[in-house]
């Protein structure tokens, strides 16, 4: 009896070894992802390439790398207030929005992850429906709402307007992270005599630090990439970089080099932070549900 089990184990091991050996020689798995990444990088490469060329070179010849690499396009952006103010404006309202979203979403997400209460499911659904709402529907009413408060062309108007989709996003993502924390931790803390605010700040927040980071990243990003609402609510003083770029496209005799440089600069913030949240990208996009 014993020998048969031994035989089977040997057989199994042999089979495993065989399949392992069979797999080794034809390992072309890297091909598909590499091809895909090549496809992704091509347009970005072209943008970066153009940003280091003079406008003359862009229009006159076709070169795969800049003949006389120049930083003049970037100099234009960093020395012209109408360009660099766009970045400052974008960053101001995006940061404001992220801070507001996270601070109101934290307690709410806790409530959703720990308690059942009257209308909780409806409320959760209603939040999601706002995350999914088409911005085009809200453009005109937002304009009227904020102009009646005299808030047009201020950073806070855009920050508040972006809360429409970022607060629900933050609540959902944070709820996803919080539900992964066992409830016993809360109960133990209460038995140990922690009050709710003290528990929340001292014990709970450190536990979901990565969740907060991920939620903040996604709030930042979705506010950063949005154009329609931001453009409608601003005219001069709070105009985001995205809107300034669109304006330049419409003008005659576009300075392609500067436009490309401006585009490259908008990619940088995301590219810098992405490494730190790389393992949570899927979770963030799936609103904490993966």
């Amino acid at each position, binding site marked *: 009896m014993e020998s048969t089990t031994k035989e089977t184990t040997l057989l199994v091991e042999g089979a495993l070894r065989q399949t392992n050996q069979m797999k080794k020689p034809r390992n072309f798995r*890297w091909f*598909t992802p590499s091809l895909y990444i090549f496809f*992704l990088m091509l347009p970005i490469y072209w943008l970066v390439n153009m940003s280091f060329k003079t406008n003359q070179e862009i229009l006159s010849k076709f070169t795969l790398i800049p003949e006389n690499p120049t930083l003049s396009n970037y100099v234009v952006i960093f020395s012209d207030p109408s360009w660099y103010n766009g970045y400052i404006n974008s960053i101001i309202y995006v940061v404001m929005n992220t801070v507001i979203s996270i601070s109101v979403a934290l307690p709410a997400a806790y409530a959703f992850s720990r308690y059942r209460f009257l209308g909780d499911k409806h409320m959760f659904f209603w939040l999601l429906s706002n995350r999914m709402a088409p911005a*085009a529907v809200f453009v005109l009413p937002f304009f009227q*709402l904020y102009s009646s408060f005299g808030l047009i062309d201020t950073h806070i108007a855009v920050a508040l307007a972006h809360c429409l989709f970022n607060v629900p996003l933050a609540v959902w993502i944070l709820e996803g992270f919080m539900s992964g924390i066992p409830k016993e931790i809360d109960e133990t803390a209460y038995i140990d005599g922690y009050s709710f605010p003290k528990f929340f700040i001292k014990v709970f927040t450190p536990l979901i630090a990565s969740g907060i980071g991920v939620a903040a990243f996604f709030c930042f990003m979705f506010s950063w990439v949005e154009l329609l609402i931001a453009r409608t609510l601003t005219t001069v003083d709070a105009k985001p970089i995205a809107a300034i770029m669109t304006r330049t496209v419409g003008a005659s005799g576009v300075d392609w080099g500067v436009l490309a440089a401006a585009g490259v600069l908008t990619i940088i913030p995301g590219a810098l932070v992405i490494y730190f949240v790389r393992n949570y990208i899927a979770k963030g996009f799936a609103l904490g549900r993966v």
Partner: protein
Amino acid sequence: MDKTYNNKAWLLVIPVFLLVALSAIIPIMTVVNYSVQDTFGGNKFFWVGTEWFTDVLRSERFHDALGRNLLFSFIILCIEIPLGILIALSMPKKGIWVPVCLVLMALPLLIPWNVVGTIWQIFGRADIGLLGHTMATLGIDYNYSSNVIDAWVTIIVMDVWHWTSLVVLLCYAGLVSIPEAYYQAARIDGASKWSVFRYIQLPKMQGVLIIAFLLRFMDSFMIYTEPFVLTGGGPGNSTTFMSIDLVKQAIGQFDLGPAAAMSLVYQLIVLLVCYVFFTVMSNVGTDKPEVEE
């Protein structure tokens, strides 16, 4: 997780409720208000009932925009979902290439939407763009701003470029959560690659795939910025999707009544899909609590 019933939890939700109500309920009420009234200019409004709704629902313009939008969503889903699965399956599972792949693939997702439009606008131009220039050199007649087919192809390729990574990353998250023991068992049984995919990987990816599917549908259904920057809705009206048409009507022509009625119909469609999404997401959350690892 079993939750206790406690209505005091509302106190924690109130700030969110107020903030989102400010930016959702008040604007929607304005829209409802416009959708049932007409104006002769100034601030004089009068009641027209459901007239705008019947107008909009019968208008060819609305049908066309909706049709274009549905066609667009259908095409990009048909491309992005299978492509995303294929790429996720061939991605490395461990080693130094994992973070490299993840970061590079996520890059298009983080680019502002109008910059995505700009990138492709430049990329596709015959005089200065790599793609346009290559096409011209090869002798292919390609011009996204005058040819309808070219415009559609460019927008679809742009969307595939922009969003396939989302599907890849979601599927990948589903794949890495499959325990190694499953694959070993399959190897012992001598399962083919296809049956490993069909009976292990696909069922395990089901949850994330549904999420990816719905997310891609919703986002492509409200697409605005990218085609707006690339083609401006043209040539003609061939790439005027719902959002573009709506903004044209509301801000360009200031036809508040029809625009408001269209907004509500649009919002209603979104709500419906959203409900499906919500039900699915709630279920995914409950039957797979261990996916985190």
